[in-house]
Protein backbone atom coordinates (compact mmCIF):
# COMPACT_ATOMS: atom_id res chain seq x y z
CA UNK A 1 0.00 0.00 0.00
CA UNK A 2 2.84 2.38 0.83
CA UNK A 3 4.05 2.44 -2.78
CA UNK A 4 0.63 3.28 -4.22
CA UNK A 5 0.02 5.83 -1.52
CA UNK A 6 3.33 7.64 -2.04
CA UNK A 7 2.38 8.33 -5.67
CA UNK A 8 -0.59 10.27 -4.34
CA UNK A 9 1.53 12.51 -2.09
CA UNK A 10 0.57 15.68 -3.93
CA UNK A 11 -3.19 15.20 -3.61
CA UNK A 12 -3.00 14.23 0.04
CA UNK A 13 -0.48 16.71 1.35
CA UNK A 14 0.02 19.61 -1.05
CA UNK A 15 -3.03 21.75 -0.19
CA UNK A 16 -2.20 21.63 3.51
CA UNK A 17 1.53 22.05 2.96
CA UNK A 18 1.14 25.10 0.70
CA UNK A 19 -1.14 26.81 3.23
CA UNK A 20 1.21 25.78 6.02
CA UNK A 21 4.13 27.33 4.16
CA UNK A 22 2.25 30.61 3.54
CA UNK A 23 0.78 30.92 7.02
CA UNK A 24 3.65 29.61 9.07
CA UNK A 25 6.88 28.35 7.53
CA UNK A 26 7.80 31.36 5.37
CA UNK A 27 6.65 33.92 8.00
CA UNK A 28 8.62 32.03 10.64
CA UNK A 29 11.88 32.06 8.67
CA UNK A 30 11.35 35.67 7.57
CA UNK A 31 10.57 36.61 11.17
CA UNK A 32 13.75 34.98 12.39
CA UNK A 33 15.73 36.97 9.81
CA UNK A 34 13.91 40.23 10.62
CA UNK A 35 14.84 39.91 14.28
CA UNK A 36 18.44 40.61 13.17
CA UNK A 37 17.43 43.52 10.93
CA UNK A 38 16.33 47.10 11.00
CA UNK A 39 13.25 47.65 8.84
CA UNK A 40 10.01 49.48 8.26
CA UNK A 41 8.75 47.02 5.64
CA UNK A 42 9.98 43.51 4.89
CA UNK A 43 11.71 44.66 1.68
CA UNK A 44 13.92 47.40 3.15
CA UNK A 45 15.39 45.23 5.92
CA UNK A 46 19.08 45.81 6.74
CA UNK A 47 21.14 43.34 8.70
CA UNK A 48 22.13 44.81 12.07
CA UNK A 49 23.24 41.76 14.06
CA UNK A 50 22.16 41.54 17.65
CA UNK A 51 21.18 45.21 18.03
CA UNK A 52 17.45 44.40 18.38
CA UNK A 53 18.14 41.82 21.06
CA UNK A 54 20.32 44.29 22.98
CA UNK A 55 17.54 46.88 22.76
CA UNK A 56 14.98 44.34 23.98
CA UNK A 57 17.03 43.69 27.11
CA UNK A 58 18.07 47.31 27.72
CA UNK A 59 16.81 49.27 30.70
CA UNK A 60 14.32 51.46 28.85
CA UNK A 61 12.54 48.48 27.29
CA UNK A 62 9.42 47.10 28.95
CA UNK A 63 10.23 43.59 27.81
CA UNK A 64 11.91 42.23 30.94
CA UNK A 65 9.43 43.80 33.39
CA UNK A 66 6.51 42.42 31.38
CA UNK A 67 8.20 39.02 31.23
CA UNK A 68 8.62 39.08 35.00
CA UNK A 69 4.96 40.03 35.46
CA UNK A 70 3.93 37.24 33.13
CA UNK A 71 5.94 34.64 35.06
CA UNK A 72 4.33 35.71 38.35
CA UNK A 73 0.88 35.86 36.75
CA UNK A 74 1.36 32.42 35.20
CA UNK A 75 2.44 30.77 38.46
CA UNK A 76 -0.53 32.20 40.37
CA UNK A 77 -2.99 31.19 37.62
CA UNK A 78 -1.49 27.70 37.39
CA UNK A 79 -1.88 27.05 41.11
CA UNK A 80 -5.31 28.64 41.58
CA UNK A 81 -6.98 27.28 38.45
CA UNK A 82 -5.80 23.73 39.07
CA UNK A 83 -6.76 23.88 42.72
CA UNK A 84 -10.26 25.21 42.00
CA UNK A 85 -10.74 22.88 39.04
CA UNK A 86 -9.73 19.85 41.07
CA UNK A 87 -11.94 20.74 44.04
CA UNK A 88 -14.94 21.27 41.76
CA UNK A 89 -14.19 17.94 40.05
CA UNK A 90 -14.10 16.17 43.42
CA UNK A 91 -17.46 17.69 44.36
CA UNK A 92 -19.03 16.86 41.01
CA UNK A 93 -17.93 13.21 41.01
CA UNK A 94 -19.94 12.54 44.19
CA UNK A 95 -23.10 10.56 43.80
CA UNK A 96 -25.72 13.29 43.90
CA UNK A 97 -28.22 15.08 41.74
CA UNK A 98 -27.53 18.04 39.49
CA UNK A 99 -23.86 17.34 38.82
CA UNK A 100 -24.21 17.49 35.05
CA UNK A 101 -26.11 20.77 35.30
CA UNK A 102 -23.34 22.33 37.40
CA UNK A 103 -20.68 20.93 35.06
CA UNK A 104 -22.42 22.63 32.14
CA UNK A 105 -22.53 25.97 33.93
CA UNK A 106 -18.91 25.90 35.14
CA UNK A 107 -17.57 25.02 31.69
CA UNK A 108 -19.55 27.68 29.83
CA UNK A 109 -17.09 30.62 30.11
CA UNK A 110 -14.51 28.69 28.06
CA UNK A 111 -16.51 29.10 24.90
CA UNK A 112 -16.64 32.87 25.06
CA UNK A 113 -13.79 34.71 23.39
CA UNK A 114 -11.10 36.69 25.18
CA UNK A 115 -12.14 40.07 23.78
CA UNK A 116 -15.76 39.65 24.90
CA UNK A 117 -14.70 38.37 28.33
CA UNK A 118 -12.28 41.26 28.77
CA UNK A 119 -15.08 43.81 28.34
CA UNK A 120 -17.52 41.82 30.49
CA UNK A 121 -15.05 41.83 33.37
CA UNK A 122 -14.05 45.43 32.79
CA UNK A 123 -17.65 46.38 33.65
CA UNK A 124 -17.77 44.18 36.76
CA UNK A 125 -14.34 45.05 38.16
CA UNK A 126 -14.66 48.77 37.49
CA UNK A 127 -18.08 48.67 39.17
CA UNK A 128 -16.52 47.15 42.30
CA UNK A 129 -13.47 49.41 42.32
CA UNK A 130 -15.65 52.48 41.86
CA UNK A 131 -16.84 52.09 45.46
CA UNK A 132 -13.26 52.82 46.50
CA UNK A 133 -12.83 55.66 43.99
CA UNK A 134 -10.46 53.60 41.87
CA UNK A 135 -10.55 52.07 38.42
CA UNK A 136 -8.84 49.06 36.87
CA UNK A 137 -6.24 51.35 35.38
CA UNK A 138 -5.34 53.19 38.58
CA UNK A 139 -2.48 50.79 39.20
CA UNK A 140 -0.83 48.14 37.07
CA UNK A 141 -1.36 45.53 39.75
CA UNK A 142 -5.15 46.02 39.55
CA UNK A 143 -5.14 45.02 35.90
CA UNK A 144 -3.04 41.93 36.64
CA UNK A 145 -5.20 40.87 39.60
CA UNK A 146 -8.26 41.46 37.41
CA UNK A 147 -6.75 39.19 34.77
CA UNK A 148 -6.09 36.50 37.38
CA UNK A 149 -9.74 36.65 38.48
CA UNK A 150 -10.87 36.53 34.85
CA UNK A 151 -8.63 33.55 34.04
CA UNK A 152 -9.76 31.62 37.13
CA UNK A 153 -13.36 32.26 36.17
CA UNK A 154 -12.76 31.22 32.57
CA UNK A 155 -10.40 28.24 32.88
CA UNK A 156 -11.47 26.52 36.10
CA UNK A 157 -14.29 24.76 34.24
CA UNK A 158 -11.87 23.55 31.56
CA UNK A 159 -9.54 21.91 34.07
CA UNK A 160 -12.57 20.64 35.96
CA UNK A 161 -13.86 18.59 33.01
CA UNK A 162 -10.41 17.03 32.50
CA UNK A 163 -10.16 16.16 36.20
CA UNK A 164 -13.70 14.77 36.19
CA UNK A 165 -12.84 12.47 33.27
CA UNK A 166 -9.70 11.31 35.10
CA UNK A 167 -11.51 10.73 38.40
CA UNK A 168 -14.25 8.75 36.68
CA UNK A 169 -11.60 6.51 35.15
CA UNK A 170 -10.32 5.35 38.52
CA UNK A 171 -11.21 1.73 39.13
CA UNK A 172 -14.03 1.86 41.72
CA UNK A 173 -12.80 -1.44 43.21
CA UNK A 174 -9.66 0.33 44.41
CA UNK A 175 -11.62 2.96 46.30
CA UNK A 176 -14.03 0.37 47.66
CA UNK A 177 -11.14 -1.78 48.88
CA UNK A 178 -9.62 1.21 50.62
CA UNK A 179 -12.95 2.02 52.30
CA UNK A 180 -13.30 -1.57 53.50
CA UNK A 181 -9.79 -1.36 54.94
CA UNK A 182 -11.02 1.64 56.90
CA UNK A 183 -9.36 4.49 54.96
CA UNK A 184 -10.89 7.91 55.57
CA UNK A 185 -12.01 9.92 52.54
CA UNK A 186 -8.95 12.15 53.04
CA UNK A 187 -6.64 9.12 52.95
CA UNK A 188 -8.39 7.81 49.82
CA UNK A 189 -7.85 11.19 48.20
CA UNK A 190 -4.15 11.43 49.05
CA UNK A 191 -3.14 7.81 48.55
CA UNK A 192 -5.40 6.65 45.73
CA UNK A 193 -7.14 9.42 43.80
CA UNK A 194 -4.28 11.92 43.44
CA UNK A 195 -1.56 9.36 42.52
CA UNK A 196 -3.88 7.70 39.97
CA UNK A 197 -4.77 10.92 38.17
CA UNK A 198 -1.19 12.23 38.11
CA UNK A 199 -1.14 12.23 34.25
CA UNK A 200 -4.21 14.52 34.23
CA UNK A 201 -2.51 16.83 36.73
CA UNK A 202 0.53 17.07 34.45
CA UNK A 203 -1.67 17.84 31.43
CA UNK A 204 -3.67 20.50 33.27
CA UNK A 205 -0.57 22.11 34.74
CA UNK A 206 1.00 22.59 31.31
CA UNK A 207 -2.30 23.63 29.75
CA UNK A 208 -2.76 26.43 32.29
CA UNK A 209 0.92 27.28 32.04
CA UNK A 210 0.97 27.80 28.27
CA UNK A 211 -2.46 29.44 28.14
CA UNK A 212 -1.55 31.99 30.82
CA UNK A 213 1.89 32.60 29.36
CA UNK A 214 0.50 33.29 25.87
CA UNK A 215 -2.49 35.34 27.09
CA UNK A 216 -3.27 38.25 24.79
CA UNK A 217 -6.94 38.98 23.99
CA UNK A 218 -8.15 39.26 27.59
CA UNK A 219 -5.22 41.52 28.44
CA UNK A 220 -5.93 43.78 25.45
CA UNK A 221 -9.63 44.14 26.21
CA UNK A 222 -9.42 44.46 29.99
CA UNK A 223 -6.81 47.22 30.36
CA UNK A 224 -4.75 47.32 27.15
CA UNK A 225 -1.72 47.47 29.44
CA UNK A 226 -2.77 50.71 31.15
CA UNK A 227 -1.61 52.61 33.14
CA UNK A 228 1.39 53.10 30.87
CA UNK A 229 2.49 49.58 30.18
CA UNK A 230 2.19 48.42 33.79
CA UNK A 231 -0.46 45.75 33.30
CA UNK A 232 0.84 44.42 29.97
CA UNK A 233 1.81 40.77 29.85
CA UNK A 234 4.59 39.74 27.52
CA UNK A 235 2.41 38.90 24.47
CA UNK A 236 0.74 42.31 24.60
CA UNK A 237 4.07 44.04 25.23
CA UNK A 238 5.54 42.42 22.11
CA UNK A 239 2.52 43.50 20.08
CA UNK A 240 2.88 47.08 21.35
CA UNK A 241 6.60 47.16 20.61
CA UNK A 242 5.86 45.98 17.05
CA UNK A 243 3.10 48.40 16.20
CA UNK A 244 3.35 51.09 18.88
CA UNK A 245 6.56 52.92 17.98
CA UNK A 246 7.89 53.36 14.45
CA UNK A 247 11.28 51.78 13.95
CA UNK A 248 10.79 49.28 16.76
CA UNK A 249 9.34 46.43 14.70
CA UNK A 250 12.76 44.73 14.71
CA UNK A 251 12.90 44.90 18.49
CA UNK A 252 9.39 43.47 18.65
CA UNK A 253 10.46 40.62 16.39
CA UNK A 254 13.53 39.94 18.56
CA UNK A 255 11.28 39.82 21.63
CA UNK A 256 8.96 37.44 19.80
CA UNK A 257 11.92 35.14 19.10
CA UNK A 258 12.82 35.07 22.80
CA UNK A 259 9.16 34.46 23.67
CA UNK A 260 9.16 31.55 21.19
CA UNK A 261 12.32 30.06 22.70
CA UNK A 262 10.81 30.18 26.20
CA UNK A 263 7.64 28.45 24.98
CA UNK A 264 9.71 25.85 23.12
CA UNK A 265 11.67 25.09 26.30
CA UNK A 266 8.40 24.71 28.22
CA UNK A 267 7.13 22.33 25.52
CA UNK A 268 10.27 20.18 25.73
CA UNK A 269 9.94 19.96 29.52
CA UNK A 270 6.28 19.03 29.07
CA UNK A 271 7.19 16.27 26.61
CA UNK A 272 9.68 14.81 29.09
CA UNK A 273 7.21 15.07 31.97
CA UNK A 274 4.43 13.26 30.09
CA UNK A 275 6.77 10.62 28.61
CA UNK A 276 8.20 9.77 32.02
CA UNK A 277 4.71 9.33 33.43
CA UNK A 278 3.78 7.02 30.58
CA UNK A 279 6.79 4.78 31.23
CA UNK A 280 5.99 4.60 34.91
CA UNK A 281 2.37 3.59 34.50
Amino acid at each position, binding site marked *: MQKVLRKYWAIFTLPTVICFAIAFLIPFITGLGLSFSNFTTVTDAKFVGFVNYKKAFSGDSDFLPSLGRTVLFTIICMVLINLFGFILALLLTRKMRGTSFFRTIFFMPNLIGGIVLGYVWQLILNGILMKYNQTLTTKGSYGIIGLIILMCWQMTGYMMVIYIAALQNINPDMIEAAEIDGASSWQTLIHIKIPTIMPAITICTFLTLTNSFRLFDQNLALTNGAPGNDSALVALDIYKTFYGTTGYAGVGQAEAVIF*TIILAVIAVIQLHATRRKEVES
Partner: protein
Amino acid sequence: MNKSRKTANVIITIILAFLSLIFIGPILMVLMNSFKGKLFISSEPFKFPTFKQQDLGEAGIMPKTFVGTKNYVSGVEKTNFWGAFGRSVFITVFSVLLIVVLTSMTAWFITRAKNHYASVLYYLFVFLMVIPFQMVMYSMTKIADVLHLDNPVGILVLYLGFGAGMSVFMFSGFVKGIPTDIEEAAIIDGCNPLQCFFKVVFPIMKPTSITVAILNTMWIWNDYLMPYLVMGKDYPTIPVAIQYLQGGYGSIDMGAMMAVLILAIIPIIIFYALCQRQIIEGVVAGAVKG
Protein backbone atom coordinates in the same frame (compact mmCIF):
# COMPACT_ATOMS: atom_id res chain seq x y z
CA MET B 1 -23.53 7.39 57.77
CA ASN B 2 -26.24 7.59 55.16
CA LYS B 3 -27.86 10.55 56.86
CA SER B 4 -24.62 12.51 57.24
CA ARG B 5 -23.88 11.84 53.59
CA LYS B 6 -27.25 13.29 52.65
CA THR B 7 -26.65 16.40 54.73
CA ALA B 8 -23.24 16.79 53.12
CA ASN B 9 -24.82 16.54 49.68
CA VAL B 10 -27.35 19.26 50.52
CA ILE B 11 -24.60 21.58 51.75
CA ILE B 12 -22.49 20.89 48.68
CA THR B 13 -25.44 21.51 46.38
CA ILE B 14 -26.03 24.87 48.05
CA ILE B 15 -22.35 25.81 47.65
CA LEU B 16 -22.38 24.72 44.01
CA ALA B 17 -25.57 26.70 43.36
CA PHE B 18 -23.89 29.76 44.82
CA LEU B 19 -20.81 29.17 42.65
CA SER B 20 -23.06 28.82 39.59
CA LEU B 21 -24.30 32.32 40.30
CA ILE B 22 -20.71 33.56 40.27
CA PHE B 23 -20.16 31.82 36.95
CA ILE B 24 -23.28 33.20 35.24
CA GLY B 25 -23.36 36.45 37.20
CA PRO B 26 -21.02 38.49 35.00
CA ILE B 27 -23.02 37.61 31.88
CA LEU B 28 -26.30 38.48 33.62
CA MET B 29 -24.80 41.81 34.70
CA VAL B 30 -24.00 42.68 31.11
CA LEU B 31 -27.49 41.57 30.04
CA MET B 32 -29.06 43.78 32.70
CA ASN B 33 -26.94 46.77 31.77
CA SER B 34 -27.65 46.32 28.08
CA PHE B 35 -31.17 47.62 28.79
CA LYS B 36 -30.01 50.72 30.67
CA GLY B 37 -29.28 54.16 29.28
CA LYS B 38 -25.61 54.47 28.32
CA LEU B 39 -24.91 57.11 30.97
CA PHE B 40 -26.12 54.88 33.80
CA ILE B 41 -23.98 51.87 33.00
CA SER B 42 -20.51 52.87 34.18
CA SER B 43 -21.88 54.92 37.05
CA GLU B 44 -24.19 52.27 38.55
CA PRO B 45 -23.37 48.90 37.01
CA PHE B 46 -24.95 46.84 39.80
CA LYS B 47 -28.35 48.56 39.81
CA PHE B 48 -31.38 47.23 37.99
CA PRO B 49 -32.86 49.43 35.29
CA THR B 50 -35.61 51.63 36.69
CA PHE B 51 -38.89 51.97 34.86
CA LYS B 52 -40.14 55.21 36.42
CA GLN B 53 -38.43 58.51 37.02
CA GLN B 54 -37.66 59.28 40.64
CA ASP B 55 -37.99 62.61 42.37
CA LEU B 56 -34.89 63.03 44.50
CA GLY B 57 -36.04 66.31 46.01
CA GLU B 58 -33.34 68.95 45.87
CA ALA B 59 -30.96 66.70 43.96
CA GLY B 60 -33.34 66.96 41.03
CA ILE B 61 -35.12 64.31 39.06
CA MET B 62 -33.57 60.92 38.34
CA PRO B 63 -34.85 59.81 34.94
CA LYS B 64 -35.82 56.21 34.34
CA THR B 65 -32.81 54.19 33.27
CA PHE B 66 -34.61 51.55 31.20
CA VAL B 67 -34.22 52.23 27.49
CA GLY B 68 -35.69 49.09 25.91
CA THR B 69 -33.85 47.88 22.85
CA LYS B 70 -32.26 51.24 22.06
CA ASN B 71 -28.75 49.99 22.86
CA TYR B 72 -29.24 46.98 20.63
CA VAL B 73 -30.31 49.17 17.74
CA SER B 74 -27.34 51.52 18.13
CA GLY B 75 -24.91 48.66 18.81
CA VAL B 76 -25.96 46.78 15.69
CA GLU B 77 -25.71 49.97 13.67
CA LYS B 78 -22.34 51.14 15.01
CA THR B 79 -20.59 47.80 14.57
CA ASN B 80 -22.51 46.73 11.46
CA PHE B 81 -23.10 43.65 13.58
CA TRP B 82 -24.91 41.46 11.06
CA GLY B 83 -22.09 41.94 8.56
CA ALA B 84 -19.55 40.93 11.19
CA PHE B 85 -21.73 38.02 12.25
CA GLY B 86 -22.06 36.73 8.67
CA ARG B 87 -18.32 37.06 8.14
CA SER B 88 -17.54 35.22 11.39
CA VAL B 89 -19.92 32.40 10.44
CA PHE B 90 -18.51 32.15 6.91
CA ILE B 91 -14.88 32.13 8.04
CA THR B 92 -15.44 29.69 10.90
CA VAL B 93 -17.56 27.21 8.92
CA PHE B 94 -15.35 27.05 5.84
CA SER B 95 -12.05 27.10 7.74
CA VAL B 96 -13.21 24.22 9.91
CA LEU B 97 -14.48 22.24 6.89
CA LEU B 98 -11.19 22.73 5.06
CA ILE B 99 -9.16 21.89 8.15
CA VAL B 100 -11.08 18.68 8.89
CA VAL B 101 -10.98 17.33 5.33
CA LEU B 102 -7.49 18.40 4.27
CA THR B 103 -5.55 17.83 7.49
CA SER B 104 -7.09 14.38 7.98
CA MET B 105 -5.88 13.48 4.48
CA THR B 106 -2.43 14.81 5.27
CA ALA B 107 -2.33 13.02 8.62
CA TRP B 108 -3.32 9.70 7.05
CA PHE B 109 -0.65 10.07 4.38
CA ILE B 110 2.00 11.01 6.93
CA THR B 111 1.25 8.06 9.18
CA ARG B 112 0.93 5.48 6.39
CA ALA B 113 3.55 6.58 3.84
CA LYS B 114 6.40 6.44 6.35
CA ASN B 115 9.03 8.12 4.15
CA HIS B 116 11.38 11.01 4.89
CA TYR B 117 9.00 13.56 3.41
CA ALA B 118 6.27 12.34 5.76
CA SER B 119 8.38 12.43 8.90
CA VAL B 120 9.83 15.88 8.12
CA LEU B 121 6.28 17.16 7.64
CA TYR B 122 5.14 15.56 10.88
CA TYR B 123 7.83 17.25 12.95
CA LEU B 124 7.18 20.60 11.27
CA PHE B 125 3.50 20.37 12.21
CA VAL B 126 4.33 19.45 15.79
CA PHE B 127 6.79 22.36 15.89
CA LEU B 128 4.05 24.76 14.77
CA MET B 129 1.95 23.90 17.83
CA VAL B 130 4.59 25.40 20.11
CA ILE B 131 5.06 28.69 18.26
CA PRO B 132 3.20 31.77 19.54
CA PHE B 133 1.34 33.85 16.98
CA GLN B 134 3.48 36.89 17.82
CA MET B 135 6.47 35.16 16.22
CA VAL B 136 4.91 35.15 12.76
CA MET B 137 2.27 37.87 12.91
CA TYR B 138 4.28 40.64 11.25
CA SER B 139 5.64 38.66 8.30
CA MET B 140 2.42 36.71 7.90
CA THR B 141 0.44 39.93 7.56
CA LYS B 142 2.84 41.24 4.91
CA ILE B 143 2.75 37.99 2.95
CA ALA B 144 -1.05 37.91 3.18
CA ASP B 145 -1.09 41.44 1.74
CA VAL B 146 1.17 40.53 -1.17
CA LEU B 147 -0.85 37.40 -1.99
CA HIS B 148 -4.19 39.27 -1.60
CA LEU B 149 -5.32 37.01 1.21
CA ASP B 150 -6.64 40.03 3.13
CA ASN B 151 -10.31 39.05 2.73
CA PRO B 152 -12.70 36.45 4.18
CA VAL B 153 -11.83 33.91 1.45
CA GLY B 154 -8.08 34.44 1.61
CA ILE B 155 -7.94 34.14 5.38
CA LEU B 156 -9.19 30.55 5.01
CA VAL B 157 -5.73 29.72 3.65
CA LEU B 158 -4.12 31.17 6.76
CA TYR B 159 -6.46 29.34 9.13
CA LEU B 160 -5.81 26.05 7.35
CA GLY B 161 -2.07 26.67 7.51
CA PHE B 162 -2.02 27.75 11.12
CA GLY B 163 -4.59 25.21 12.31
CA ALA B 164 -2.77 22.36 10.59
CA GLY B 165 -0.37 21.74 13.48
CA MET B 166 -2.80 20.62 16.14
CA SER B 167 -5.21 18.99 13.68
CA VAL B 168 -2.60 16.87 11.86
CA PHE B 169 -1.20 15.86 15.24
CA MET B 170 -4.58 14.72 16.54
CA PHE B 171 -5.56 12.88 13.35
CA SER B 172 -2.21 11.05 13.16
CA GLY B 173 -2.59 10.03 16.78
CA PHE B 174 -5.88 8.41 15.82
CA VAL B 175 -4.61 6.80 12.60
CA LYS B 176 -1.71 5.18 14.46
CA GLY B 177 -4.26 3.32 16.55
CA ILE B 178 -6.31 1.79 13.72
CA PRO B 179 -5.24 -1.46 12.00
CA THR B 180 -4.16 -1.30 8.34
CA ASP B 181 -5.99 -4.49 7.31
CA ILE B 182 -9.19 -2.85 6.11
CA GLU B 183 -7.32 -0.21 4.14
CA GLU B 184 -5.12 -2.81 2.49
CA ALA B 185 -8.16 -4.92 1.63
CA ALA B 186 -9.76 -1.88 0.01
CA ILE B 187 -6.62 -1.22 -2.07
CA ILE B 188 -6.45 -4.88 -3.16
CA ASP B 189 -10.13 -4.70 -4.13
CA GLY B 190 -9.16 -1.96 -6.58
CA CYS B 191 -9.72 1.26 -4.65
CA ASN B 192 -7.18 3.98 -5.32
CA PRO B 193 -5.81 5.68 -2.15
CA LEU B 194 -8.24 8.57 -2.52
CA GLN B 195 -11.29 6.29 -2.65
CA CYS B 196 -9.83 4.20 0.13
CA PHE B 197 -9.45 7.27 2.29
CA PHE B 198 -12.91 8.70 1.77
CA LYS B 199 -14.82 5.41 1.76
CA VAL B 200 -12.96 3.56 4.50
CA VAL B 201 -10.71 5.76 6.66
CA PHE B 202 -12.62 9.04 6.86
CA PRO B 203 -15.82 7.45 8.26
CA ILE B 204 -13.81 5.65 10.97
CA MET B 205 -12.21 8.96 11.93
CA LYS B 206 -15.54 10.57 12.80
CA PRO B 207 -14.95 10.97 16.57
CA THR B 208 -11.60 12.65 15.96
CA SER B 209 -13.11 14.80 13.21
CA ILE B 210 -15.71 16.07 15.68
CA THR B 211 -13.03 16.86 18.28
CA VAL B 212 -10.87 18.65 15.72
CA ALA B 213 -13.89 20.56 14.40
CA ILE B 214 -14.94 21.70 17.87
CA LEU B 215 -11.48 22.80 19.00
CA ASN B 216 -10.94 24.73 15.78
CA THR B 217 -14.41 26.30 15.92
CA MET B 218 -13.72 27.59 19.44
CA TRP B 219 -10.40 29.04 18.28
CA ILE B 220 -11.45 30.59 14.96
CA TRP B 221 -14.81 32.01 16.09
CA ASN B 222 -13.12 33.84 18.97
CA ASP B 223 -9.84 34.70 17.25
CA TYR B 224 -9.06 38.38 17.29
CA LEU B 225 -5.49 39.15 16.32
CA MET B 226 -5.24 37.34 12.98
CA PRO B 227 -8.42 38.76 11.40
CA TYR B 228 -7.58 42.19 12.84
CA LEU B 229 -4.08 42.27 11.38
CA VAL B 230 -4.91 40.59 8.08
CA MET B 231 -8.30 42.11 7.20
CA GLY B 232 -8.59 45.00 9.67
CA LYS B 233 -11.34 47.56 9.20
CA ASP B 234 -12.39 46.31 5.76
CA TYR B 235 -13.79 42.97 6.90
CA PRO B 236 -14.22 42.95 10.69
CA THR B 237 -15.29 39.71 12.37
CA ILE B 238 -17.27 39.90 15.63
CA PRO B 239 -14.27 40.21 18.01
CA VAL B 240 -12.67 42.81 15.72
CA ALA B 241 -15.93 44.78 15.50
CA ILE B 242 -16.19 44.82 19.30
CA GLN B 243 -12.63 46.04 19.64
CA TYR B 244 -13.30 48.83 17.10
CA LEU B 245 -16.33 49.92 19.12
CA GLN B 246 -13.95 50.52 22.01
CA GLY B 247 -11.17 51.81 19.76
CA GLY B 248 -12.32 55.40 19.28
CA TYR B 249 -10.71 57.87 21.69
CA GLY B 250 -12.75 59.57 24.35
CA SER B 251 -16.24 58.47 25.19
CA ILE B 252 -17.14 54.90 24.48
CA ASP B 253 -20.83 54.12 24.06
CA MET B 254 -21.26 51.69 26.96
CA GLY B 255 -24.87 50.96 25.96
CA ALA B 256 -23.92 49.81 22.48
CA MET B 257 -21.00 47.87 23.96
CA MET B 258 -23.20 45.93 26.42
CA ALA B 259 -25.72 45.11 23.69
CA VAL B 260 -23.04 43.91 21.27
CA LEU B 261 -21.40 41.77 23.97
CA ILE B 262 -24.75 40.05 24.56
CA LEU B 263 -25.30 39.60 20.82
CA ALA B 264 -21.83 38.05 20.59
CA ILE B 265 -22.51 35.66 23.47
CA ILE B 266 -25.97 34.43 22.29
CA PRO B 267 -24.74 32.35 19.32
CA ILE B 268 -22.12 30.70 21.56
CA ILE B 269 -24.74 29.77 24.16
CA ILE B 270 -26.96 28.29 21.42
CA PHE B 271 -24.04 26.31 19.99
CA TYR B 272 -23.18 25.10 23.49
CA ALA B 273 -26.77 24.10 24.25
CA LEU B 274 -26.97 22.11 21.02
CA CYS B 275 -23.68 20.19 21.22
CA GLN B 276 -22.75 20.39 24.87
CA ARG B 277 -21.78 16.73 25.21
CA GLN B 278 -19.59 16.74 22.09
CA ILE B 279 -17.93 20.00 23.13
CA ILE B 280 -16.96 18.78 26.60
CA GLU B 281 -15.87 15.36 25.30
CA GLY B 282 -13.93 17.03 22.49
CA VAL B 283 -12.13 19.36 24.87
CA VAL B 284 -11.16 16.48 27.15
CA ALA B 285 -9.99 14.35 24.22
CA GLY B 286 -8.06 17.28 22.79
CA ALA B 287 -6.32 18.01 26.07
CA VAL B 288 -5.40 14.39 26.72
CA LYS B 289 -4.01 13.81 23.22
CA GLY B 290 -2.54 17.26 22.63
